[in-house]
């Protein structure tokens, strides 16, 4: 039962660690495969977890994690709930540009809209980005991987003159002031 800390370890040279948290594992796997395939010049290590906290056994051999991605399937209430629980296991440092939400099924009108709304509230309150994805198609997965990778490289300090905090200040989710444009249905 230990918080996950962003700065308790030294970074490794030319290496970036990303943690994908999803309570079901199928999309996670696809995404992980794509991520490691996409990146050539940086040594990207992907860690898969169903939820936080991470098991303590391997705590010390685990490298420092530069980006935590919470995968939320709007199609399942459980996914949202477990994300909420896991969030509590992150040290506040991660909310400064070292975490983001990856949302599937946002385009689907049949999922209860309040899920998306509550997720948006969460993201807004944590000043964290909210990435929509199409988990159904390979293109969708590729794109998701690409975007996550971009964020990872920045948050791992591999992009000169850019930091995770800087980026997230640009892309963090904000609840639109004009309610007219909130998704009604």
């Amino acid at each position, binding site marked *: 039962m230990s918080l996950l800390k962003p700065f308790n370890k030294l970074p490794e040279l030319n290496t970036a660690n990303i943690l994908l948290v999803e309570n079901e594992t199928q999309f996670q796997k696809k995404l992980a495969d794509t991520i490691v395939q996409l990146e050539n010049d940086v040594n990207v290590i992907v860690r898969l977890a169903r939820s936080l906290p991470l098991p303590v056994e391997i705590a010390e051999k685990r490298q420092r994690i530069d980006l935590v991605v919470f995968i939320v399937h709007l199609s399942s209430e459980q996914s949202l709930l477990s994300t909420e629980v896991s969030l509590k296991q992150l040290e506040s440092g991660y909310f400064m540009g070292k975490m983001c939400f990856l949302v599937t099924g*946002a*385009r*689907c*009108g*049949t*999922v209860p809209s309040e899920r998306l709304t509550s997720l948006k509230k969460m993201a807004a309150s944590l000043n964290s*980005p*909210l*990435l*929509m*994805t*199409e988990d*159904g*198609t390979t*293109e*969708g997965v*590729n*794109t*998701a991987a*690409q*975007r*996550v990778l*971009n*964020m990872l490289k*920045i948050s791992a300090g591999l*992009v*000169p*003159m*850019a930091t995770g905090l800087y*980026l997230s200040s*640009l*892309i963090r*989710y*904000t609840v*639109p*002031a*004009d309610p007219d*444009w909130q*998704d*009604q*249905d």
Partner: protein
Amino acid sequence: MSKKSDPSRLDMNYSSENDSLSSGRSDRSLRVAEKARKKNEAEDPFLLALKYFSQVEEGTPWKGNDVLEWHVAVVERVALSQGLSPEAISVLLDFALSSRMSSQQCVRILKILVPATVVPQDAIIQGVSWLCVGKMAMKTQVLFIRWVLTIFDLIDSKDQLRAIYGFIFSFVTEESLCPYICHLLYLLTRKESIRPYRVRKLLDLQVKMGKQPFLMHLLALYKVFSPELVALSFPSKMKGGFKNHNSTWKVALSAVQKRNNAGVLTDLRLNLSMRTQPNSKKRKFSHLTIPAVSSVPLRVSSSKALPLEQLRDFPHLLENLHRIELPAQMGSMLGSPLALHYIDCVRDNSAFLRLNFWLGHSLHEEFLFCREASSQNMAEATRFLNTLISTQRLLQEGFSSTEVFLYRFLRVWDGSLLRTQILGLLSDIAVVPSSRIKVVLFEPLMQLFFTSSLFFKCSVVECLNSMLLKWLTWHSVYALEDELDISVTSQTPQNMTLSGLMDSVVELVQFVGRIATVGLQLEGYHTLLLSFTLDFYETVCGMYLKYDLPLVLMPPAGVFYPALLATNPVSVDRLCQIMHRYRASLVSAKLQERQSQKPFHISRKTYREFNQYVVSMVNCLWNSRAFMPGMGIELAEDLLARSKVTECCSTFNLIHHPAFIGYAVDFHQKCWPERKELDLNSIKMGKCWDWYTEFLFSEGLWGLKEFVQSSLSHRTSSRVSGTDAR
């Protein structure tokens, strides 16, 4: 239990009885009979089946009735393979709805009623009459109506259907039928079909059932035709619409369609839409394909209105402008340029309402309503959106429903799904008021922009560039003094003042400035992104002179300096050109102000920025005074010293600039072919320099040339160029 576990058991008992009767006959005769049957089969089992269905008399037992089974099987095969002929449809529909056998059979038949070409109107009429008889089970009725909706556009003509509008209307009171009836009515309604008592009825229903979308839409249509009867006010953006997802038919039909998608519509006598939609029959099965234009072929008696699809060509359109009959399927307008021209000429609100509704509905259904992105779907989607795009290009304006859709879609977009189309559509949207542009456009775009790939970044910049272009064009077209109406087609025409437009433009340009700055930084000043950014500023710098929008906006330093210090000559050259254009605008603006018959004011700040940039350019490229104080980029002496670059001030002059050094070397060799060691500085000496610049121009660096000629003609220093802009 046993029933549940295997249904076959039941009918076995029954049929064993049947057989027991039959088995009295001698088996010889049986076999003879069977041989005979075989012979008939050899002729055509399908016809036999039809014969059977047309003749089978009421109350024939169906359980364990092998003959029936067999015929149904035959029909099923045919229907699902090549679809059913009009006659077949009439026969089967009649059999089904007359419920001569059990309702199961009826449903079963309805389910496989897949037309190959068209559906005869009479069949539908017949069906409705059976509906009136009212011995059908409710779910069968619903199924029937839904079927009609599905194949609506295949009904060969709709005049008589319109004639029995009243009958159909009478069914709205049926709770479970109502939604579908409303949809059907929506498709059939014309001005003359609107009566006070019908309006009243609908209003009552609305009171009873609450604000159901299907009622709202029908009423909205009524209001359009006769506003005096419908007092309600409708929200500008109505949600939902008529939901009629019946995948079974869709799939079956599109399958049949795929197999024989040769111009089935030839019998629909359509000339217009054929070209755009060779297989536009698919339209209903996936909302995504565009209906063919088919309005009611008129009975002689009725008014002299001219159905749209009978238009031959543009002149013909012009002659008949006053008596055009709009098609039942507004969607079909998309397919046909003539129709669009018509719409463009006569600002028919109802037409736009219906077209908008149709669009909004399909867009929503297809992209914001659980549609897993399979490649086949995507192919259709792409085609559809492309048509939409071309339509909008033709009308030179976006539909409001497209905008509404886009704003919603951007918020749930992953940035890759149908990227080309979405950005294409986005670049067409009408000017967004500056009050909401941030929320509806910038925020979602930012999220996507900064996380996505280089190519996406480029696409966004490109998209915004063409968006700006369109806005400017509109402005230059509708440039009325102070009141220009931009969104002509939109449901709620928003009048936009010049200042309003200018605010929006400023917002847009500044936005691009911001994202380009950061984007370039993130992408390590990638040449591709840089060039797209310069594209954008080529548009911006011409705003005043080309589109006479009284506005001059300089690029931010984050764009200017990367371009100036870029490693490829093209970027630098284009920058020069852009600066030259800015100069031209500013100069003429000055003139305007001097003559002050059109007083408008460009802030000193803009001039200052401009001069600043010019100064640094000249210092860099000509005066070898890079990094000097007073330039945009200053560097402390010691820092420069520490970089251990000898005479670093001159590293960015026309000779040593990474973009030009190639030319310099080239030039050097041309000048002193005999020289062994390379001494680029010797180019600076006396005439050489002029020759060198000439050489550069001759290498096709026009931008540079223009810049030189304008800003430092007669070899003055930059300050002059600055002042003469003042």
